[in-house]
């Protein structure tokens, strides 16, 4: 941002928390971006939050500690905050407000986009329907992700969401030759993350070679709260450029949205707004929607923006406003589980509360495999029954169970150990499906209400007779 439209000197009258009050000696408009240069040369970013006939209220997006009124200059840009982007984004590392952190040259600024984005007309959206493989069975087979979807990861403190994020970033791929033909990129934004995590992400991506197809945005825990609110917006602006100008399929990983929401709460409190649930502002739903809704496809344009936002549920509580409001906006959720993690199951994905709402449009005949929907439905139904049986067994003991119930118990264990658990290796969808059919083979045919007779015959009976029973 180098093109200031107007400059005001000695117009700052009062500073209060994040707000700076200026006399209105210049004709500027609401939401305009400003830069405040202190007498000591420090530069802080802000935006015009309110105007009356005599004064301008600026909301500072950087820490205001140390700000003085005397000797400050205020530069007005005549328009809301923008991110200047151009070719050469891939492989670069930025901070939360789009400044290079990798010592590389500044970007060729061919385009300047409002970091807030603009709402896509619902009519201009293409309904997402193309499969995107992550390498995890619990996602690809059971909760398939499609291009243009937003599918968050609900995690908890101490769970391996960082690892999962990196694995997805490294293993994600488009089916067939779409990847080479249309291009696939990752935009990774660390929001309010500790220095160590930032290093971890950078190193892992570099090691796997994924960094070359990635744009990294790192907003550290030590950066200001207001900047935390901007980091995902800069990242999404970059993603939209890659998707809708360069025509690539872009997977955006945002972590950790909980830090974002905390910053939102902090800024709201400092503005003196009436808080809603747990002190978070009443507009948090709408604010989060302005991020999550930036996923999608646009009719007539080749690329797509897919989002995997990651958040840590305070106290593992899924009813906490952060996961709750997120779940109300996103198209499903993948939930991590402490118990599975303790049992060394990786990825520790708790399937029952997990859901991908756009799965149905991206799988099945002509998309993945004709029997994929029925297989996933049957696995879900049986696994949920196995869970209930486990509760029952906990009360009456295994001896009190019927034969069928015992088979269900076995199926449940098998399912977790062989299907959910996969360790470090990525699986192709075909491998995931094979694992699914093989898990079902232990169940009595009477339980398989979600499969039709042909599916039972082709995938379960024929193979069962052909193959040696597992001893």
């Amino acid at each position, binding site marked *: 941002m180098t093109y200031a439209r107007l400059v005001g000197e000695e117009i700052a009258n009062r500073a209060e928390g994040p707000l700076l009050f200026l006399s209105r000696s210049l*004709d500027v408009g609401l939401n305009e971006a400003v830069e405040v240069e202190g007498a000591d040369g420090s530069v802080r970013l802000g935006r015009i939050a309110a105007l009356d006939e005599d004064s301008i*209220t600026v909301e500072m997006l950087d820490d205001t500690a140390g700000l003085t009124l005397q000797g400050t200059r205020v530069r007005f840009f005549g328009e809301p905050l923008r991110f200047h982007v151009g070719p050469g984004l891939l492989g670069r590392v930025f901070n939360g407000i789009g400044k290079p952190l990798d010592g590389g040259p500044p970007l060729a600024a061919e385009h300047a986009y409002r970091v807030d984005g603009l709402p896509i007309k619902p009519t201009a959206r293409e309904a997402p329907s193309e499969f995107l493989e992550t390498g995890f069975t619990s996602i690809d087979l059971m909760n398939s992700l499609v291009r243009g979807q937003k599918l968050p990861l609900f995690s908890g403190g101490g769970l391996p969401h960082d690892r999962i994020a990196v694995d997805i970033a490294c293993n994600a791929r488009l089916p067939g030759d779409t990847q080479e033909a249309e291009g696939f990129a990752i935009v990774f934004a660390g929001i309010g993350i500790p220095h160590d995590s930032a290093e971890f992400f950078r190193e892992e991506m570099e090691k796997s070679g994924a960094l070359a197809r990635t744009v990294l945005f790192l907003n550290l825990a030590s950066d200001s709260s207001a900047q935390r609110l901007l980091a995902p917006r800069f990242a999404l602006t970059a993603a939209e450029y890659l998707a809708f100008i360069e025509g690539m399929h872009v997977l955006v990983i945002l972590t950790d949205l909980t830090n974002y929401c905390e910053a939102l709460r902090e800024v709201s409190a400092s503005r003196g707004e009436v808080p809603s649930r747990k002190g978070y502002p009443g507009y948090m739903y709408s604010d989060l929607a302005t991020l999550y809704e930036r996923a999608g496809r646009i009719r007539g344009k080749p690329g797509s923006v897919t989002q995997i936002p990651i958040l840590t549920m305070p106290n593992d509580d899924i009813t906490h406003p952060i996961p709750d409001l997120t779940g109300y906006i996103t198209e499903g959720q993948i939930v991590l589980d402490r118990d599975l993690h303790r049992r060394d199951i990786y990825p520790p994905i708790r399937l029952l509360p997990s859901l991908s709402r756009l799965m149905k449009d991206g799988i099945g005949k002509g998309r993945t495999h004709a029997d994929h929907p029925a297989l996933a439905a049957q696995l879900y139904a049986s696994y949920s029954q196995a869970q209930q049986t486990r509760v029952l067994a906990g009360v009456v003991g295994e001896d009190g169970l019927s034969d069928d119930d015992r088979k269900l118990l076995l199926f449940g264990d098998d399912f977790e150990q062989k299907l959910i658990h996969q360790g470090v290796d990525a699986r192709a969808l075909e491998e995931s499906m094979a694992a699914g059919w093989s898990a079902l083979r232990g169940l009595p045919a009477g339980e398989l209400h979600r499969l039709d007779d042909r599916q039972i015959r082709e995938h379960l009976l024929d193979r069962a007779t052909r193959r040696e029973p597992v001893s």
Partner: protein
Amino acid sequence: MSTAETTWISGPVLRARPDGAFRLRESVTVGDQALLGEVIRIARDEITVQLYEDTSGLRPGIEVTGSGRLLSIRLGPAILAGIFDGLLRPIADIADPYVKPGMQVQAARRFHFTPSVCVGDPLMPGAAIGEVANGTGIAQRCLVPADLPGGRVTAIADAGEYPDDQPICWIDAADGRHLAVAMTHAWPVRVPRPVQARLPSDEPMLTGQRVIDCLFPVARGGTGAIPGGFGTGKTVLLETVGKWCNADVIVYVGCGERGNEMAGLLAEFSELEDPRSGRPLLERTVVIANTSNMPVSAREASIYTGITVAEYFRDQGMNVTLMADSTSRWAEALREVSGRLGELPGEAGYPAYLSSRLADFYERAARVRTLGGETGSVTLLGAVSPPSGDFSEPVTTHTRRYVGSLWGLDAKRAQARFYPAIHPLQSYSLVAGNLARWWHNTGCTRWQELRRRFLTLLEDEARLERMARIIGRDAMPARQRLVLICAQLINECFLRQSAYSMNDRYASPSRQAVMMRLIGSFIEGSERLLDAGVAPEAIRDQPVFRRLMRMGEEIEEGDWEAFSALDQELTATIRRLLNEAREGGEE
């Protein structure tokens, strides 16, 4: 027109110094872009305006222009099959794929008009003056606006094409005025359109969903609410009902929800055919989309826009169903506006008038005799999105007081992928009794009896499941195990109905009745078997049980032969088991 000069602006609210009089709730435009807004507070020397669009770039000094009218929309033939934002501005043009400030209302279009009145005819307010074709296959009427006085026709246009905003009928009004009527007219969204009389409602609004039509039905002109946590199936249910219900016109209001959902709905509705007319479903649909990332203030208005559009089609003698997804987002928008006005917050921060606003909204549902003397109805279905899925929050509790049918979605069912996840013990219908006659007259004479039977079984199931969790299933008496098996059948084959199954996404009343009867026969047959000493598990393990469980999935609409074959198989199986039991007993 009155004008005012902006003195203060922050977010979507501005204050201005008026020159001339403004009315409360008057619609205004601001600045060169003509941004739309509404006056939300007036004082002698200051008005407060809420804007429905992004306000970036506005500044003190900018002019506010009054319209002299309350916030209104233009009703006319261009609405049907259209897609609009919350203020009825078309968003079908995607040359620019983004929503930007200053979008324009629908421009005038030409339609073919055929008069149905002659010079000299008397006309009442709300009467039809002719038919309009908009290429959808649904004949629309052109009405005298209900807020004009009656009178006599002095001139009427010949059949032909006219711009929809030009006069086509001239009237000498009873009060001496000379009036001109066009195909379109403006109506304030917050004012219910008048009717001659409200009529009792004894006909179901059929949804094609068994759990609704048979267990918790809704009447034409009735109201229904769907509370449920995220991902429990509110949107899919509303969309499914939108596809298959027997309404003439569907008004779908996407209020603060997802863009991809609206895109999916548009794509599906243009592909699917209305089973009754054979034309694309989109042609009987009006979509009002104000997604979660579009300006919040317009979200509040979108509900009123939707219901006004619905009433407009009702007044043409049609049966209209409006779906609002989600009323909670609307309530939250109310909360935001209220907060901006500095009103005292009530429960969970909602304004004290939340309850009365909800009541006013659902009150606009009705089956009526229109001013023009016809019968029409508006049925209202609203999704409710309780925070944390907790039904004791204000929007859910107040809604519950005003709706005739409630379909409570259960997170456990949804997690087990049991759809629709309507929980039979958390749902009700106050109108089921009134609708029993309709089912009786359509030939399903046992509807009421079987409905009761199913509900009782489901209640017993809940109780017995609790017991089974303590003592184990096998330790329960045979009769109770049979209850669990029958309930499993009702759940799995009758209540479960995938919206994505080609065969099962829709069930006609006849198919529902047949399935109900078959389940009834199974229950009665297996009770007889139990009396004869046959173990419930032996009954369940018969092949016919799997066929019954999968009949929704496997037997398509209209295949009555398959159903009667299944019926015979069931009867034969029961007879065989009975015989075996008798012989076994004699040995």
